[in-house]
């Protein structure tokens, strides 16, 4: 029975193999062996200095052989290695009677704890860098480090762990690891950067439940859509084998052209943007070659506080995000919150089924001041940008035509709205199509808005009545089901008739092999996870739009998702 786990895409590609579970001991754990008696403090200090020299040479070498992004990591690690705060703490522990290895463990563990306690996520993540430098030192001091379990590994290994440090990643048996799945970590962690430069597919944030899996299980790491599939059924396995071979061919070319625009052979330019969930995702925008942000989720701004953020607070936050778009547009989804993520100051009623309850625009229309404040902040930002790096407001969870009308009426009253939207051209309003009724009725409201964006994750789950995080039914909720494709086609038709672009921002859009189908259905813009951008652009450059239209017409006649997979395979 296959099991599907959803995580985040951190390095693209598909890996197929057997799980090897890596459970490192805590960094300050000596592995049960009694520490040898410490020598004279001066001798221990000399040992530490000698180890530090070796680590420094090792980091300098790693910095020379890697790409620019990875080189930076090792240069920063050298800086930490020589940092007075670290070395003074090691010296103090040695003077207090510890041997060099124990002193290093202790000093780095203290610093790691200190950093983990910082409130800002970026700075708190630096704990990983410190742990990494500590591991390298302890390794050179002859101490037991868990990374000794990572080399050698069996052929075709899918490495599964809670997290990996950059040290782990540089010490693992790279030739034999075909994929990595991590319960924690983020796509901007050093391990992800290293995995991308090594060409090893990586899925992170897959959740603690993957740690229940054990070594030897057969699995697929789908670094494109951010999934781990265990014991895949035959159909899925076959598709993944095909995708894998196709990707290998295109990867190198894709990376070298990631900063070029994605033009189809017929010359149509398809903007490829990124979805942003957290601050970390912002750092992907420039390196991946993305053209702005196609979906900014704003829930984080509103959660974990006692009152809603003020207009000024929101403006500052959106300005900050906008500074990362590299002179491209920023699409902001209005607060999409419901009973599953209750926010205390909204006093939400308890709901048996929050995904079918008061969420998204339904909630905002009940709290119009929140909608007005959020829009106000975005309009103020729109007054200071150009049409090129314009602001696009995206309305979530529309299921009725009335909700579009009511929202637009509220927006019309906000000072600056008309000026920005109609005169300056720096503000657009669009509807997120994620409920089947919105797709079916899109032609009724398309002419009143500036763009549509299809959220295929929710559209598939609402169309097929299957929860995508419930692994027992998750595979039912595929956006490549003919029912979902027909809703996408209807939405594209409504957009075309109204003369407005239609975007897609679901997970499926990150799969290079579906680009012909998406363009054939009539989509004009793509928004994906940062690491997927180069391969998606490269796939778009190969799409013959006429053939793609025929492909879409054939796909729309299919009755089963499997036939559609087959069609994609035949053209790939």
């Amino acid at each position, binding site marked *: 029975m296959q099991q599907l786990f959803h995580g985040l895409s951190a390095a693209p590609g598909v890996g197929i193999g057997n799980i090897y579970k890596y459970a490192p001991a805590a960094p300050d754990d000596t592995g049960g062996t009694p520490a040898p008696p410490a020598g004279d403090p001066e001798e221990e200090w000399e040992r530490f200095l000698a180890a530090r020299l070796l680590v420094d040479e090792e980091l300098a070498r790693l910095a020379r052989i890697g790409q620019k992004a990875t080189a*930076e990591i090792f*240069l*920063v690690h050298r*800086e*930490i290695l020589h*940092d*007075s*705060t*670290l070395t*003074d*703490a090691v*010296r*103090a522990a040695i003077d207090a009677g510890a041997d060099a290895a124990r002193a290093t463990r202790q000093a780095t563990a*203290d*610093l790691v704890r*200190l*950093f983990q306690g*910082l*409130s*800002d996520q*970026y*700075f708190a993540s*630096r704990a990983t*860098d*410190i742990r990494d430098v500590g591991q390298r030192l302890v390794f050179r001091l002859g101490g037991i480090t868990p990374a000794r379990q990572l080399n050698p590994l069996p052929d075709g290994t899918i490495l599964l762990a809670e997290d990996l440090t950059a040290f782990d990643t540089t010490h693992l048996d790279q030739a034999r690891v075909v994929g990595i799945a991590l319960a924690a970590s983020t796509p901007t962690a050093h391990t992800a950067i290293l995995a991308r430069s090594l060409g090893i597919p990586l899925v992170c944030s897959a959740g603690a439940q993957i740690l229940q899996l054990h070594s030897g299980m057969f699995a697929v790491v789908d670094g494109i859509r951010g999934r781990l599939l265990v014991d895949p059924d035959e159909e899925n396995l076959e598709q993944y084998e095909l995708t894998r071979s196709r990707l290998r061919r295109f990867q190198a070319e894709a990376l070298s052209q990631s900063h070029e625009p994605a033009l189809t052979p017929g010359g149509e330019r398809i903007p490829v943007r990124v979805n942003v969930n957290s601050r970390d995702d912002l*750092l992907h925008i420039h390196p991946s070659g993305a053209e702005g942000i196609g979906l900014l989720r704003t829930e984080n701004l509103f959660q974990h506080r006692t009152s809603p953020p003020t207009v000024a607070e929101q403006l*500052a936050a959106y300005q*900050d995000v906008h*500074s*990362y778009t590299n002179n491209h547009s920023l699409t902001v989804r209005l607060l999409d919150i419901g009973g599953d993520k209750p926010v205390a100051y909204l006093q939400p009623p308890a709901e048996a089924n929050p995904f079918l309850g008061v969420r998204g625009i339904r909630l905002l229309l009940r709290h119009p001041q929140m909608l007005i404040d959020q829009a106000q902040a975005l309009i103020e930002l729109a007054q200071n940008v150009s049409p090129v790096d314009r602001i696009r407001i995206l309305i979530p969870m529309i299921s009725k035509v009335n909700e579009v009308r009511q929202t637009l009426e509220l927006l019309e009253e906000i000072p600056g709205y008309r000026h920005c939207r109609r005169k300056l051209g720096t503000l657009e309003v669009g509807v997120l199509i994620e409920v089947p009724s919105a797709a079916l009725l899109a032609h009724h409201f398309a002419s009143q808005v500036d763009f549509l964006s299809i959220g295929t994750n929710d559209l598939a789950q609402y169309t097929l009545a299957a929860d995508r995080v419930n692994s027992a039914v998750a595979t039912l909720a595929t956006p490549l089901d003919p029912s979902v494709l027909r809703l996408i086609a209807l939405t594209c038709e409504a957009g075309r008739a109204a003369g407005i672009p239609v975007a897609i921002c679901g997970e499926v859009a990150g799969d290079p092999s579906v680009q012909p189908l998406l363009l054939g259905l009539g989509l004009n813009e793509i928004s994906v996870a940062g690491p997927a951008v180069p391969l998606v652009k490269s796939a778009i450059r190969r799409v013959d739009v006429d053939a793609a239209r025929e492909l879409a017409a054939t796909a729309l006649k299919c009755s089963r998702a499997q036939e559609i997979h087959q069609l994609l395979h035949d053209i790939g």
Partner: protein
Amino acid sequence: MSNNARSPLPGDRAAHPQTPRQPSKCVVVTVSDPRGLHLRSGRDVVRIASRFQARITAANLSRNSGAVDLKSILQLMQLQARQGHSLRLAAFGPDADAAIEALCSLF
């Protein structure tokens, strides 16, 4: 160079009151880098600070943090300095003026 070697978080003890007649210089700067004072830009700050004899500290006024040693990247990171944050830089020693001048150009 560091008077707080035994503690990773020096707090205000770094203010070092027992150095009376030394030249000192203090200035408030605003972080302009959109990514804040992250590892890479922090590295430049530490590099420049380390060229001077003066003892140099920084406090993040926007987070009400204590002063840290600006010659240590690990202490600098603890300021958690984001774009727009105000930092108070202080230098104590013979080349304090030159140190502050050089550091100001980085913000």
